[in-house]
């Protein structure tokens, strides 16, 4: 049972870490209506589709950018069995050396509540309602070192925790999409999104350092931390603004609409030549306004040096005071806390997709996709090379290779089956987790079932033929 828990923990950790992203393979699978979430200019092949709650789209994306299963659990010749990196026979420095200065953990989940789309001439209209959640954490190597080894390696140095970040978001997205073929070569599309924030926690600024003096006789903490959040709770603070307790309050209907937001996706595709198509899109360019009915802002700023508990008062006949109370008082004096329930804007992390697609013939094509995401002041880049084929009618396949989150061993697969009016699909950019699970850092998966009509592009072409040549 414990092993199962450990495995679950590892999978969760993986899920927490690859800065959230959709299956890259989806981008060139235009038979799926979900493709419009990556580039609104791409028009689904189906003339009409209808998505069902939950089952039409389940998107799961978990991972990290540093560790694989093999780094956590591995064979030990010395012990003669598998061990974890916490086994006493293992040199923990080997584990720490595998960490980057910044280590990301993420999980992303989104599902469909309702979606519909249809073609009208050269235009395509979509309406999507989705629930999205996103949890990310970035932890610095120094934090892991402190937790696993203490501060003995930091004598005369500062353990920097400034790159720590935490982010958790949960919101509803109502998206109205429109795509228009401007010309035979150029198609332009846009999604206009109305958002409703349901909950948020994020470290807006996080500058934290712990200095240990060479002699170990002084610890200095420097902090400049700003946290923002939105939740149906009441935060009670003491006179120094330190949190005393957090009381949950009843969720009201108005909470579901009290944090409005807006976002845009826009994109274009361009046929450079008959066999080559270029495309680009910007997704999730927008914000959510968390207002002061549920907003919480907390800042922690100051510098505090601890040189020992002052026990001077314990000596002599003077009435002594509690040294720990004195310590707490001086900490509160030096490290100031500020709390407010003032509303704030939360900007979504926009993503930029740039793609090129080469058609070998009408059943086989190859795609190259670049994805750039802006998160926490950092730019995260990934690439996917895919081969797409439609070997027989009603079946679409894709195979891909991706460079994701500093990981270079990601092979992906995708499959779409058309069963009458139903479209069943499943795909993953990291299907190779099954090939080398011990080396895998992240895993994503998308699957679902759509109700789709008018999937025959030839028929559509004929329909578009002029009556008189």
């Amino acid at each position, binding site marked *: 049972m414990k092993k199962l828990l450990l495995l679950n923990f590892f999978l969760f950790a993986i899920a927490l870490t690859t800065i959230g992203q959709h299956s890259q393979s989806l981008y060139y699978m235009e038979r799926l209506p979900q493709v419009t979430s990556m580039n609104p200019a791409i028009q689904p092949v189906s003339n009409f589709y209808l998505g069902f709650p939950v089952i039409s789209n389940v998107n799961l994306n978990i991972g990290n950018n540093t560790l694989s299963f093999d780094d956590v659990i591995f064979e030990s010749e010395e012990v003669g069995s*598998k061990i974890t990196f916490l086994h*006493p026979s293992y040199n923990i420095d080997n584990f720490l050396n595998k960490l980057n200065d910044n280590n990301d953990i993420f999980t992303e989940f989104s599902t469909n509540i309702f979606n519909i789309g249809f073609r009208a001439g050269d235009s395509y209209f979509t309406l999507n309602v989705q629930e999205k959640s996103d949890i990310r954490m970035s932890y610095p190597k120094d934090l892991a070192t402190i937790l696993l080894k*203490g501060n003995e*390696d930091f004598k005369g140095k500062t353990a920097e925790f400034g790159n720590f970040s935490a982010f958790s978001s949960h919101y509803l997205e109502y998206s109205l999409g429109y795509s228009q073929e401007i010309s035979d070569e150029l198609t332009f599309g846009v999604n206009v999104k109305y958002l409703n924030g349901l909950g948020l926690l994020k470290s807006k600024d996080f500058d934290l350092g712990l200095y240990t003096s060479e002699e*170990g006789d002084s*610890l200095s903490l420097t902090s400049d931390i700003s946290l923002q959040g939105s939740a149906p709770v009441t935060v009670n603070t003491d006179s120094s603004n330190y949190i005393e307790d957090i009381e949950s309050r009843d969720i009201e209907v108005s909470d579901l609409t009290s944090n409005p937001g807006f976002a845009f996706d826009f994109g274009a595709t361009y046929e450079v030549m008959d066999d080559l198509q270029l495309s680009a899109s910007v997704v999730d360019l927008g914000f959510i306004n968390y207002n002061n009915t549920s907003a919480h802002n907390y800042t922690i700023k100051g510098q505090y040096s601890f040189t020992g508990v002052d026990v001077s008062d314990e000596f*002599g006949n003077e009435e002594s005071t509690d040294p720990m109370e004195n310590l707490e008082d001086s900490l509160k004096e030096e490290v100031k806390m500020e709390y407010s329930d003032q509303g704030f804007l939360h900007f979504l992390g926009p993503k930029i997709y740039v793609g090129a697609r080469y058609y070998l*013939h009408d059943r086989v094509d190859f795609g190259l996709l670049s994805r750039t995401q802006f998160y926490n002041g950092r730019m995260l880049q990934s690439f996917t090379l895919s081969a797409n084929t439609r070997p027989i009618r009603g079946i679409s396949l894709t195979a891909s290779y991706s460079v994701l989150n500093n990981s270079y061993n990601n092979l992906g697969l995708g499959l779409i089956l058309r069963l009458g009016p139903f479209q069943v699909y499943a795909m993953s950019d990291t299907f190779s987790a099954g090939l080398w*699970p011990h080396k895998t850092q992240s895993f994503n998966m998308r699957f679902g079932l759509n109700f789709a009509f008018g999937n025959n592009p030839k028929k559509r072409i004929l329909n578009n033929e002029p009556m008189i040549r």
Partner: protein
Amino acid sequence: MKKEATIYIFSLFISLLLVTSCQLDKFDLSDLSEKKEIGQGWAAPLIKGELTTQDLLETFDSTGLINSDAEGLLYMVYTDSLYSLTANDEVNLPNQNYFDLLYEVPYTINNFTGSETVSKDITHKIIFDSDEQLDSVITDIFTLKQHITSNIEHDIEITITYTDIVKNGAPLVENTNILENDIPYDEELTKDLEDYTIRTHSFDTSDHKYFRMHYEVTVNGTGNDLNKGEEVSIETIIENVDMQSAYGYIGQDTLMQQEANIPIELFGETQEGTVEFANPQFKFLIENSYGVPIQIELKDAKAYREGSTDSTDIIFENSSNIFDIKYPEFSKNEVGETKKDTVNISNSITNLSDALATNPTHVKFSSRGISNPDGLTGDTNNFVTDESQFKIFSELYLPLHLRAEGLSLRDTVDLDMSDIIEKDQEEIKEVITKFKTINGLPADVDFQVYFLDNTYQMIDTLFNENNRPVIESASTDSEGKVTDLTEKISEMSFYENEINDLTKVRNAVFEASIKTSEFSTDTTKKVKFYSDYTFNFRMNIETKINLNLNN
């Protein structure tokens, strides 16, 4: 080409599916070792402090008063208090009892209907308990009893004027009427009189004090015979005099006779050491509200160590063990005042330093306070109030200008280490403590902490007993004043088994032994401890902890 590419991709797809299914056994954790632990090394400051000499001394000696003089030189004072009797207990007018025959019929007169008046002035000698000769006593209250008897069968009027019992300048007058029908008459009249002054009268021909009364008796005949030998008499009793104040000579008497015992806790833990004070002093701080010359006599002064039969006599030069104390004087209109005085007899004691060098835990002596030591030949204008008293605070005043070795200071405190070391949760493999001191005191400090269990049995010590660190004295000049501080870092290591034993610790004894600067090299060097001298310390620890995560 088209078909081949399609087949190739399709084949790749199927192959990936198959291979993937074969790799899932990588997650087989059936042989995963359960052992998990984190080995941490922490370096952190623990405690710090800045102690003045006064803090240190007060920590180890809570009985002595520690203070500094105008120059900041610290001194310790050990005291004991002596109290005299209050004047209310010692000085009073005793009960007085006087009998007077007011009138005796000299011859018989039949069927007497006339009126006969006689008057008489009488004085009575006042009886005192001792040799006192009070001039007056202002009372809060006293009782006057008049026991009158008569067998004269006529109406009688008696008026008694108490010349020496006055209030607002007027003497007390008492009237009594006896009717024929009351005969034979035998009645006692009792009165409580408030705020009267009872004066005494002196005659030039006598050394005694007298009380004066004037009687006037009138016999109003009722027709009965007035028979020879019939009489009327009175017994006057003055008793229960509650004095407010008294004036005059209160006599030569012992107002105080007590033994003083001054504890010296500084030497409580120092049996073998050497302590030589440069200028110890023996002082008496006196507060006296008796308006009387008083002489104090000290006897049998000894320095001794509790538990030992040995003692050292403290020897006074000449008659320095007898001294007079100041008193408020009637002639200077100082009634009701309290005179304060300090009597320093240090220079009259020939061996005080030597006596203190025996590390005594106590100094004791007998004391006696006598009023009017010169008797009636001195100032006899004494006065007392009911609250008059003299208090003598005997002080052993020890300026910290000294030469010492092995002066031990010890303090026991509660210390429950099980609260600090949580066994079972984390396994502490090693603790290295680094103790940094900056010594600003003119003395080497040899410091140790003993860890004891709940039965006060020793479990461990902070420093290895054979290698106790000596924190060297600050540098001093020829006058014994500090010129430069000294710094020292001492390291102690505790290992796993020792740390486990420490969980039994419930008490700790802090012990510091002091040796003054250059004690061994200069036998005349005495150092001075000033109030601004400090002893700084910091303790930081480096620990190695194994956190067991198996559970």
